[in-house]
């Protein structure tokens, strides 16, 4: 796990959120976890495959998820976290992962992303080959706090 794998996710998050809802996200301080887990209520899990492999979890509180879904749906009220709201949040994760994959590609790493999965918490841990995790908090004014947990490693080349 390298810090340079994290930067594309932060950059992509800020860019995607700005394009989607016109708000500038502010990143917080990086922290580390020995394994991939989340204590957030709503989590989007995206797999990254290819020359860099692992998982990324975008975690947030239920309130933040509803606020974000509402903004993505043009301001309509989201009373219940229904299928449409959940789909909006999943798509958010998909777009950020896609943008990050593009940046990783530009840094020389060819990757692909898997369709996102929504996992409702709290307290979820994932078995992930024990790849250490780096966590970046992202504060989006008017919406809430997101937590991006990145657990990636360079794929080992096959032995000749």
């Amino acid at each position, binding site marked *: 796990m390298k810090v340079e794998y994290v930067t594309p996710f932060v950059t992509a998050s800020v860019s*995607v959120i700005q*394009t*989607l809802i016109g708000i500038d996200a502010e990143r917080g301080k990086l922290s580390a976890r020995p394994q991939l887990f989340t204590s957030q209520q709503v989590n989007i899990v995206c797999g990254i495959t290819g020359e860099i492999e692992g998982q990324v979890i975008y975690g947030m509180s239920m309130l933040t998820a509803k606020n974000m879904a509402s903004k*993505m*749906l043009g301001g309509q009220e989201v009373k219940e976290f229904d*299928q*449409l709201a959940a*789909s*909006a949040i*999943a*798509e958010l994760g*998909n*777009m950020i*992962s*896609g*943008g990050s*994959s*593009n940046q990783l*590609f530009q840094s020389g790493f*060819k990757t*692909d*992303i*898997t*369709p996102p999965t929504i996992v409702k918490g709290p307290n979820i841990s994932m078995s992930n080959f024990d790849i250490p995790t780096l966590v970046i908090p992202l504060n989006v004014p008017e919406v809430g706090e997101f937590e991006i947990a990145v657990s990636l490693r360079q794929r080992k080349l096959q032995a000749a």
Partner: protein
Amino acid sequence: MAKRILITDDALFMRVTLKNILSSNGYEVVGEAENGAQAVKMYSELKPDLVTMDITMPEMDGLEALKQIRAADANAKVVMCTAMGQKNMVVEAIQSGAKDFIVKPFQPDRVLEAVGKLLAA
């Protein structure tokens, strides 16, 4: 007569968003496919004027669906609409016959411009 469009995306949110943009601008959304396999099937059933195609989907991805649709109909107009905007993806899609490539998130005008250009009477 309104031009007929088939939307393909595994995300309900995306299908709803695209349908809103297209139908409020004079197009008829005749079908919504949730993955590439459904898109291939619905294409042959509905024969739409244009298809929007996501790439990252379960069952069958959009690049594979694009190739199958183009193999069945060399005149098929497919516009990729995806979060995966890497150069090699764009190249592969265009080489496989996609007419345009839109990266998400997009502004509604980007979609309307792409669709309008291809469906100009």
